[in-house]
């Protein structure tokens, strides 16, 4: 089936107008459309709400936070100076989404509400304790990103709500790493992504560690137990090897033993080790 059926198309110019439509009827919000249009090809008739003219493509910074408009494209984030200064992993992740054409259209809001287990930007956002601003006629609600996605492709967003923006906490660390594994060298659906931010003191001990993974758990998640394990530890190769093993335990605990586990076990261990090693050297890895 390839037929797209659109029974209504609204193009609101204000958030007020948009939320009014959403309160009135079941609309599918469409921004870049790179995920939505694929869904539409199954022939289900839909009412569309174009949210491109709501001016949601801002990136702003205050003392503690970065606010990213939900309609920011991946291209925009990959080259935004505020993003690369304060939430670098988000910029790197956005730069690895799909192809240039997809990055030019696809938005970070779309990547979040689509809620795919292998979404590239979500693990990166989790590092910055991202929160989502949801607007509706009933008012404004803040949801934590790590509580937003309930299961693959399902979120707590109500149909009358609009994802307005994402608030990331600034957390300057001494080193970062983002690793994306795919089947080919570009335009990949992620087989696995690892995001790491490390804070290391002058004595080479871990002050803080933030670690998340995509395509490892049913929904992209932080590995808090692993972070706890690392905090306060002196950096040495054996530590990162143990961290890799612990990550695998966490994966099997939360995802069960699946058809892909024999592969993911050693790979997750190896990539966690690699990402920690890179982050410990203070580099923002872009491979």
């Amino acid at each position, binding site marked *: 089936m*390839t*037929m*797209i*059926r*659109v*029974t*209504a*198309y609204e*193009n609101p110019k204000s958030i007020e107008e948009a939320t009014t439509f959403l309160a009135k009827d079941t609309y599918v919000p*469409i921004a*870049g*459309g*790179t995920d939505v*249009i*694929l869904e*539409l*090809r199954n022939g289900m*008739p839909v009412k*569309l709400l*174009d949210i*491109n003219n709501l001016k949601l493509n801002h990136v702003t910074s205050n003392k503690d936070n970065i606010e990213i408009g939900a309609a920011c494209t991946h*291209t925009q984030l990959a080259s935004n100076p505020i993003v690369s200064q304060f939430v670098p992993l988000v910029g790197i992740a956005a730069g690895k989404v*799909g*192809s*240039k*054409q*997809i990055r*030019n*259209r696809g938005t970070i809001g779309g990547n979040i509400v689509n809620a795919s287990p292998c979404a590239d930007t979500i693990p990166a956002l989790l590092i910055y304790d991202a929160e989502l601003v949801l607007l509706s006629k009933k008012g404004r609600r803040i949801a934590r990103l790590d509580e937003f996605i309930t299961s693959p492709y399902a979120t707590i967003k109500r149909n009358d709500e609009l994802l307005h923006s994402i608030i990331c906490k600034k957390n300057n660390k001494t080193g970062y790493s983002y690793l994306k594994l795919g089947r080919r060298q*570009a*335009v990949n659906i992620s087989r696995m992504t690892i995001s790491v931010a490390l804070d290391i003191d002058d004595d080479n001990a871990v002050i803080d560690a933030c670690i998340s993974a995509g395509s490892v758990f049913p929904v992209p998640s932080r590995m808090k137990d692993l972070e706890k394990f690392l905090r306060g530890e002196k950096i040495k190769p054996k530590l990162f090897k143990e961290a890799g093993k612990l990550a695998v335990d966490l994966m099997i605990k939360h995802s069960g033993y699946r058809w892909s586990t024999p592969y993911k076990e050693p790979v997750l261990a190896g990539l966690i080790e690699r990402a920690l090693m890179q982050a410990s050297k203070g580099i923002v890895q872009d491979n």
Partner: protein
Amino acid sequence: METILNTNVEIKVGFKLNGLLYEKSIPANWTLLQLLRDGLGYYGTKCGCEIGECGACTVLLNGQAINSCLVLAPQIEGAEIWTIEGVADSINSLHPVQRIFIEYDAVHCGFCTPGMIMSTIALLLENSSPDENTIKTALAGNLCRCTGYVQIIEAVKKLSGIITEKDLEKFRYSE
């Protein structure tokens, strides 16, 4: 079933295509690709997969390369679009990008070529002297099964030395 079929709404849309202003009433379920080909007869833009994987339908939308199969026609309200037909200044002339593609034998079956050329122009708008990796990344969303990309990449490398702002200015989008 019949009722569903007739419920596709039509939307009035104004846009600029290859430098010309259009105002059309368009079925809201059409993609930009359908609008270009079936609606306006611009068959130079090709349809290869309809899911944004092959890049054959790449056009410039407000100065950026996008897959026209993944844009709904109503979304182009107020937009500026360039397709392969608008690249050369006249019917018998060629744009430098087109000329170099011929010179480097970057065109085999030619089906990916319009999209490849649009992605190349979009790249040059951002960076008029891209290195090899930048070129590869910019073209990774355009699949080619004939050339193995080698001659295409060589052609684009060559362009970095000869392309001028004059060759690019009409494609630039200013809000």
